[in-house]
């Protein structure tokens, strides 16, 4: 494969976190190019590139920017979602730690395009090293006139960037939960409408983008929309809802593999390719039993589904929620799916914000049922009960305000449909044969 990494091209380059090294390697060329265009032209380039949000939902980035009210008197805010907390996901961390200026350049270009004058980087609290590298990069950029007032001598472009360390909750990564948390409140996702682009942080128009999305913006401006479109998977002409999966993507490979890593590949590689070619195969010579395609909330692929292309539409064809954050977690054949599912449910139970009844109570209920099954006190009817709860809280659209319940429900649905025999056997043997291994 002749794919040349773009987002990770500076990875491992000594001192590339420093501004001068980054600039020597062509850094801030894209910003200069963007500033020669009008903001509307920049938006158009991003729109043309077909860039879709890398945070999980895959919403077209350029389209989101056009939702901002025209001729707003400001201020407009850009929130950078760096609250990376989907289990198995660590690509934002690598971007911020290895190449902070690339992210910062993307932020600056995006702020120019959206006419934002303030950018908040909402950083996961646990990312201490990211905080330090990003803060150093921000300070350097201010000193070099790449941030602050009159950026690159442009009298009409000012941008302040603040790092905001998060409050340690998964729900802070939901865009309106992030905004609430940024405002100093409980991270309770807001009801929509109004969407953040109309009324977001501090009741002003706000764009929330993922770190990787903004890093992509840097290269789209540098190399053009056509370059971006030449990578990845074009839309399926038979599916009018498929917007295509263009561009490079950072895949995180973790779990039971020999070589857990973060690799940059064109969208559309298969899970098997990732495991075999980049993850070094399943560890201890075992086989994969299940693979999480993009963060635990997306559900599970079974062994026979590993050839599914991991683009924005691929996982949905085999019953998963979507591509999510493209964090691939490999589960080997010695692992009990009951344990995996219990762990998943326990995570979402812990992270449910408690605002909507179905999610608050449903995640709790599912966890308690699975805990009972693991104690050897399960009944076969519990499986249908679990499926019904999952269906009630997340699979039926619209039952909750945000997508957390969906994320809690899909692993349950996938595990119980794709691995039902294992659950039934577990219950019949009161979980004993698993203890004997």
């Amino acid at each position: 494969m002749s794919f040349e990494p773009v987002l990770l091209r500076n990875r491992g380059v000594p001192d590339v976190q420093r501004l001068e090294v980054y600039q020597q390697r062509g850094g801030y060329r894209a910003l200069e190019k963007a500033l020669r265009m009008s903001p509307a032209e920049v938006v158009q380039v991003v729109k043309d590139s077909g860039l879709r949000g890398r945070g999980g939902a895959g919403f077209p980035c350029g389209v989101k920017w056009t939702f901002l009210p025209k001729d707003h008197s400001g201020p407009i805010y850009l929130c950078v979602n760096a609250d990376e907390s989907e289990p198995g996901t660590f690509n934002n961390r690598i971007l911020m730690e290895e190449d902070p200026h690339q992210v910062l350049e993307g932020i600056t270009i995006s702020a120019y395009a959206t006419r934002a004058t303030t950018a908040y980087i909402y950083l996961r609290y646990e990312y201490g090293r990211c905080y330090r590298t990003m803060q150093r990069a921000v300070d350097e950029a201010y000193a070099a006139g790449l941030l602050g007032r009159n950026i690159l001598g442009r009298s009409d472009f000012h941008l302040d960037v603040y790092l905001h360390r998060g409050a340690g909750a998964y729900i802070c990564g939901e865009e309106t939960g992030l905004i609430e948390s940024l405002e100093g409140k409980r991270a309770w996702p807001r009801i929509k409408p109004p969407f953040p682009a109309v009324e977001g942080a501090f009741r002003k128009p706000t764009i929330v983008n993922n770190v990787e999305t903004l890093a992509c913006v840097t290269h789209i401006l540098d190399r053009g929309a056509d370059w971006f479109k030449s990578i990845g998977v074009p839309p399926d002409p038979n599916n009018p809802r498929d917007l295509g999966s263009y561009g490079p993507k950072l895949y995180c490979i973790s779990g039971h593999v020999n070589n857990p890593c973060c690799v940059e590949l064109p969208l559309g590689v298969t899970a098997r390719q990732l495991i075999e070619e980049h993850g070094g195969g399943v560890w201890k010579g075992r086989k994969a039993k299940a693979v999480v395609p993009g963060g635990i909330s997306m559900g599970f692929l079974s062994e026979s589904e590993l050839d599914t292309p991991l683009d924005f539409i691929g996982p949905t064809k085999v019953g998963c929620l979507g591509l999510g954050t493209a964090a691939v977690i490999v589960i080997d054949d010695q692992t009990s799916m009951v344990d995996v599912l219990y762990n998943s449910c326990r995570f979402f139970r812990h992270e449910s914000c408690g605002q909507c009844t179905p999610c608050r109570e449903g995640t709790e209920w599912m966890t308690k049922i699975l805990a009972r099954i693991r104690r050897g006190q399960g009944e076969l009817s519990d499986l249908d009960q679990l499926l019904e709860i999952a269906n009630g809280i997340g699979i039926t659209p619209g039952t909750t305000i945000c997508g957390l319940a969906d994320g809690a429900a899909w692993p349950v649905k996938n595990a119980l449909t794709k691995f039902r025999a294992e659950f039934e056997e577990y219950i019949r043997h009161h979980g004993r044969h698993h203890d004997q291994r």
Partner: protein
Amino acid sequence: MAVITINDKDVQLAESERLNLIQAAQRAGYEVPHYCWHPALTVVASCRMCLVEVGEKKPDGTVAMQPRVVPACQTPARPGMVVRTNSEKAKAAQAATLEYLLLNHPLDCPVCDQAGECYLQDYSYKFGRGYSRFKEDKIIRPDKDYIGENIALFTDRCVMCSRCVRFTREISGTAELQIIHRGAHAEIDVFPGQPCNNKLAGNVVDLCPVGALCSKDFLYKQRVWFLKSTSSVCPRCSTGCSITIDHHKDIVYRLRPRANPQAQGWFMCDEGRFGYKYINAADRLISPMVRHDKHTLYVGWEEVLPVLRRQVRQAVTEAPESAWLVLSPWLTCEEAYLAVRWFRSLSPQTRLASGPVPVVGEDDRYPKDVHGNPPPLDKTLFTIRAEKCPNRLGVEAILKHYQGTIHSFDAVLEAARRGEVRVLYLTGGYPEPGWTSEHCTALEGVGTLIVQDILPSPLTSVAKYILPGAAFAEKDGTFVNHAGLAQAIHRAVQPPGEARSDARIFVDLLERRGLPHAPALRAELASEIPCFAPLNAGQIGPLGVFLNGEGKP
């Protein structure tokens, strides 16, 4: 006119109307269950109880339904919308939410104060399922009796609708209540040492749709299904909040606000809410009394009234200008009218005066800001008024009509000190007796002092005649609030012992036949006094009638 279809029923919406789907469905006669939504509070759409299906009618007549369920509280009614509140999908979503809400609920209905008026009970009955499928251990959380002086929290019963939290943030502005912890462990709490004791705090008990927040005043006093409800008006300040009196066997157990956009809105203050206890006081005046030297004798009404009438008439015949009638601002309009009719029938020269008008501090406006300062007038959502009586405007309107000028109570005291008062007919009704020993001293020289009141006071120990009257919950009539809104009060309980409604006393003194009938008296008042003309129908609806447009009478 826009049309929206709800379960195959068409509902008309005026162009200016902004209804959500709960309200629109209500108009069509369908109940959409809801917990977190309240018309006076912001929409959070978090309880997910009001999930319904929506769609649109296409120009070709077909209906396209959305695949998702939506919360009715958050969805505005738009023309052409098709709403299904009772489709299989909507019903399944509603039943599921109810099942979730009951998972960790203790189901302690037998000992719960809310039982009988609980939305968990009602909605479970209408929309829920008959049994629980939850086999696990429930989460048990400690009850909190420290939430407020008058508020206890039964934590396990809470459905996390956050109405109470929003009330303290949006209406009282005091923000004592908050949610602590996350997910299924979330609870309502206060910051340690800062309980919810603001002057509107009692409203969170009414707002709570379940038995989580309970009023310590009412707790375990009465099962609500024994209570009878009578609509009335709170008499504790001139705002005149519309209320409901809940009573059983002639005892008032609690007052609750009754929604009235013309009067106060949705809420009432704690001063009014808990200010009913004097009605049930043990030392109420219960029988007419006549003083003979140092002794007072209990007498029957049929004995005292002829004597009193004769004595007053005689005194008025001798010196009409030294006969005074003092009308308390606690009298209803009808009572004040009858009293004046009687007194003036003795002689047109008799003097009429208004009773003391209690004013405490300044008007207290809400929501407060973070520093406790009141909001600007146009942002005010609730006002507790400084004038602590219900009917000053109504009584003054009658005085003005019959006498032109209004003598203040100080003028009465002044005249008494000069020895110019031979007969003084004093009406009271103040919950905290307004009469002090200073008044006693000033009124020493009064020839015949007649006190018609509800509670003993320094004056009742010197008066010649003591007539036991009725409190607001014991009589029918009309109160006129600060803005000229005339509202009806209704009798909820019997006056104690031999006490009688003031109107009945005056009817007897007037030697009219029969018992006072408020609607008839109201119609008579309307025909006699022009500013009361809007009441000529006799009946006043539950929301009241503005006298003289919307201004003061």
